[in-house]
């Protein structure tokens, strides 16, 4: 549960699939046009899935469905990609004949 003033992430549908402009590929046409933003919860308290209001970092008041409490980033330097090591080895070989 989040309470007033907590930092949360909200989601909304800006345009339903059938409301989208015609000039887009067919696959995109089948999808809703969606939006995410973050802000300070304005409601007294709320749970995931509730319709809420937030005040964003730019002081805008925005409504949406509460989807994340205390949101954080999870992107990283990614999983091991063995090809990268191959490139390193090859470059050393070409430039220095193996070791430096």
């Amino acid at each position, binding site marked *: 549960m989040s309470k007033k003033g907590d930092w949360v992430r909200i989601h909304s549908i800006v345009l339903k699939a059938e409301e989208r402009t015609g000039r887009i590929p067919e696959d995109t046409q089948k999808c809703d046009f969606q939006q995410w933003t973050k802000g300070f919860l304005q409601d007294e308290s709320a749970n995931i899935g509730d319709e809420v209001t937030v005040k964003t970092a730019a002081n805008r008041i925005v409504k949406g469905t509460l989807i994340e409490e205390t949101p954080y980033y999870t*992107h990283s330097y990614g999983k091991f990609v063995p090809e990268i090591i191959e490139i390193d080895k090859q470059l050393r070989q070409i430039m220095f004949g193996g070791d430096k």
Partner: protein
Amino acid sequence: MVLAKDYDSVMGRANEIMKKALGLDYQEFESGSIAFDYEALMKSTNYTLEEVAKIQAKTAVGNTPLIELRNLSTLSRKYAKPGYGARIFAKDEAANVSGSFKARRAACAVAHAKKLGYKGVIAATSGNYGAAVASQAAMQGLECIVVQECYDSKGVGQPEIIEKARKCEAYGAEVVQLTVGPELFYSFLSIMEDTGYFNASLYSPFGIAGVETLGYEIAMQCRELLGKDPDMVVCTNAGGGMITGTARGLLKAGCTNTEIVAASIDLTGLHMASDSQFNKKSCTTGHTGFGVPYATDPDHSDVPRSAARTLRYADRYVTVTQGEVMYITEALANLEGIERGPAGNTSLAAAFSLAQELPEDAILVISETEYTGAGKHIQPQLAFARDNGIDIIFGDPAKEDKPGVNIVLPKDPGYIKHQEADINRFRQSLINRACKKAGVTNPSEADLKFLAEETKTNVEFVKKTLGL
């Protein structure tokens, strides 16, 4: 009165909203026909290059190092005929506050917004520009909203774009994230209307004037360091602001013999507005998906007339592949000790091969590098590609590259080969589109001259294109 905020109502007010949000009326530059007064638009900023440099110096932008890439130059020579293989230099734009050349654009746009009394700025971008505007807004005390095309319909986003969102938030901006599609413009306008913030468009004359210092610095640094002008400058190209500003700066410094080359990653076959293909690409800018449409029709951005006009300045347009850019990014780290983001290295991949066409004492400059970090790095980008079913193989990119299907890492550096795009075909496309857009079938003398300038050609070429 409460304004209706539905799609049609907001889009119907687009011109009005944009005019208010830029403090600039583009009508005064129009001729009523095909031609418009581009130089008058650029002059409308009322900032000289020196003033722009001053604004930038105040906000930790500009005066970035020009670094000779000695080992990469040596490596490139191994694949050139004797006596060939230019000296390659990189303008280390990652050294700008916010980590890319976009800080130059943002510094001017935000300073101008502040001067005009706007309380905040808003920008539509999934790239480095968002971070640049957010950083400048933080420094100059304005609110900032960045609107990103970020996710596919399942809420999956490229690590590179997610990283940009993080960086914008770190600078105190609000980031509005959207799914794929051109309706981003509706959301953008709607927020602009509600907030009354300045449209810090990538394509405004303020933004492009900000990049002129980059070209000017390259000229001055080459003269100081090497005693001569660069023979070739290669620019990573998407919306055309990098190449336009850099070329204008070089010209202002008097570099009239420098060859200007646009370089983009070839993403032929991938549709930029396709939900299912959105995450099949492994780079988010500097690719032909932006580069070609913007070059051939610059005026479809978030301003009535774009100040970024690739074909006015490009002598050549070359493409490279995603795999070549990934490879050269790793080579830059391994052989030069310079770890930078892949997107900015598009021009480096092209330069590595273009250098082999030039003699050993020629000077080839790539106009930028960009910062790297979590998500915005070849490992997460390749890992993301693999998770999305993209094959990562070693091979011959020229023969095997299929955007959206594979990433072909060159099997050795000799397989890094730029492809020459048919720039005359792009020029013809621009000319035909411009006529069609204006609904003009018999262009005036002024129109013909304008189209010749637009395409760096001559009236004869324009006439021939139009069958006149």
